[in-house]
């Protein structure tokens, strides 16, 4: 029994001590760092970035974020910090720099890894299902809700509200939305 109590106390102590230990080690690291002599400041490597480079970078990261990192389950090669993802990203950059289109680069990776490499299924054939099913549910559900609200308001509001029901529900969702969203469009 006393061993159990001791164990409980030990666990509680660990729970309490863990953040403290963390803080201490952080403080220690900071102290270690501070105790070393400061080094000279040098200019950042790489120099300035030209406009063409930044366009290439933007294209590379856009394309890389649609390609799956094969070793990390779910992350894109843009997001993944793994070494393989970094290599694949530079392959993407090289291909784009060599004048290939996004489509060609994607086709290259599909030929190498299969369709699996795309994080978003290609929208044709059987794959259309995954895009269409949610849309069907939305459209069908919207129709169902409008129908229900119509029938639920038909008697109590003397028919006047019934006619306006569908329009009002639809209007409620879209009309003010356009109002606030207009500066974007």
């Amino acid at each position, binding site marked *: 029994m006393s061993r159990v109590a001791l164990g409980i106390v030990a666990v509680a102590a660990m729970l309490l001590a863990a953040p403290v230990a963390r803080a201490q080690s952080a403080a220690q690291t900071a102290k270690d760092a501070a105790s070393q002599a400061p080094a000279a*400041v040098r200019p950042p*490597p790489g120099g300035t970035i030209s406009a063409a480079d930044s366009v290439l970078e933007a294209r590379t990261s856009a394309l890389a974020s649609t390609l799956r990192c094969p070793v990390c389950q779910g992350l894109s090669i843009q997001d993944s910090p793994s070494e393989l993802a970094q290599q694949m990203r530079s392959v993407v950059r090289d291909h784009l720099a060599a004048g290939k289109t996004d489509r060609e680069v994607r086709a290259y990776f599909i030929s190498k890894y299969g369709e699996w490499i795309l994080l978003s299924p290609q929208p044709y054939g059987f794959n259309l299902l*995954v895009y269409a099913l949610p849309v069907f549910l939305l459209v069908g*559900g919207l129709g169902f809700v409008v129908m229900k609200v119509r029938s639920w308001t038909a008697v109590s509001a003397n028919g006047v509200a019934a006619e306006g029901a569908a329009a009002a529900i639809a209007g409620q969702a879209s009309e003010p939305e356009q109002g*606030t969203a207009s500066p974007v469009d």
Partner: protein
Amino acid sequence: MTRLVAVDALWFALIACAVGGIVAPIAIARGKRQWLPFAQAAVYANFALVTIATGAMMWALATHDFSISYVAQVGSRATPLFYTVISLWGALEGSILFWAWVLALYSAIVVYTNRNRPGNLVPYAASALLIIALFFHILLVGPANPFHLVSPVPLDGPGPNPLLQNHILMAVHPPLLYLGYVGMSVPFAFAVGALLSGEAGSDGWIRLTRRWTLLAWAFLAAAIIAGMWWSYEVLGWGGYWAWDPVENASFIPFLTATAFLHSVMVQERRGMLKLWNINLVVGTFALTILGTFLTRSGIISSVHAFTQGTIGYYFLAFIAVVLIGSAILIAGNSDSLRTDGRFDAPVARESVFLLNNLLLTVFMFTVLVGTLFPLVAEAARGVKVSVGEPFFNRMTLPVIVALLFLMGVGPALPWKRGSIEDLKVKMIPGTIVGVILAAIVLLLGTRNVYGVLAFAFAGFAGTLNIGEYVIGVRARRAAHGESVLTALRRLFGANQRRYGGYVAHLGIIVVAVGIAASSTFRTEREATLKPGETMTLGKVTARLKDVWGRNEPQRDVIGATVELLAASGEPYAVLSPRMNIYPMSDQPIPTPDVRSTPFGDTYMNLMSFREDGSSATIKIINEPLVPWIWFGGGVICLGALISGWPTRRSA
């Protein structure tokens, strides 16, 4: 000894659940109400026995009793005691044991707090909880038995999965997740109780269920946010959500539970949507089991799925039993679930709740279909496909934006009958704030449509929800002449559920702004530096000071010391991104370091290093407003707490 105690406890718990689970239905059917206390006793006995088994496992972990298979699997003498004990939920068998314990705890609380309630609802609900527990006990003595005897006894074990012993949040996220997931069993049990006792058409079970759903929902929300935080702090990619199957599995029941928390108000106020609500309760529970099946059976691989085995079929069978059983019960009660209620007018809060339920259902369905599609495609075409972030973002962002809009409109509309004119007036301040926010983010240079829309509608909804407090406080001041603070306090007191709900709305808006800002304005830079060299990202200038190595008992650590420099060249902060190398893992575990301010984080990761310490590749990510996500998660829970806090009046 520990092993035998635990195994016996689990077997007795299994018997208690099996017997207790059938006692109540038989007692009620035969009119022997004097038998019902046996079912109650079984619930308490189950809790005591599973507590013994769980305690035995923690003891075995803490004392490195490698004769027990689970300890031999996840324990190691080098792992710190804290991470050893929390590895209770680090692998499949232990997490099933922990699940069974949480379920036993909830069951005991449900039975105890409702012990004086007349009628058959609670005995039937207790039966349902015992039968669910029986399923987990079958797993625990069968395919997921953590207490197998290992012989000969190994001297040491491999230790927990490296990803699970690398961060303190592993002590927080899984328990919260189980409290949320398992909590959804209680509303389901009440639904079964209501259907069996013929109370499904009355409001009593809904009142019981509502607060339990809110509790489980709040735990699930906290768990999801804590999981995002863990992902951010441990996985080293600077993100917090990847639409990974395990993340989706926790998010899917959260969406249906959110839908229920709204639609249940329509049932309470208008006596409508009874059939829909009971389906949401059953569906939410089934989705928690489906989520567990997807992530624990190894059928879908994921970064968070640390466990797999052959227990998938047990889960599938259990889901089938749950769905078929519920369908039969619901069909048998179709008369009492039918409602002939009416709406007074189409423009009213009821209608917004219908649209909110539609959008949440579509959201849930989209995530579910996307998560399952790789399985379906492989079965149908024999081709592996991936469904990842680009798909989920494209499909769900429009729904999220529409939900933010409804979140502003709903509170502004009255029950029963609203007017478009009043609504338009109420929406003016929100629209102005939304337009200003949209203009600001456009001026800041983003052309990401959903980024702009998310800011606009978050601003819109936030203003309208705050507007409800302003209107309420003004009304109280006008009527009673109270001070602002007194008026605000009494406003919460008078309708804690409603105003607590708006607090939860504000929490979600804060999270939405954090996500929108960090995904729209994130910038990053990677560079290879020699000690003393600097790199610059926006306003951040970082100087590599040195690269160091350190041996710890359970791992080797390589780190870089990087100073953040002020304009004067003086360091104002030191970050130490590391790589932790565990013996059982061939890949180093990145351990980024983060400097947080209320406006955003500087996130730094050590990508690679020269072994002689002559250079290191550092990635710096500028993450605007990320801490808002964690803060918003806290606000959501606060809102749920205010909303569900028991008062004398509601008890």
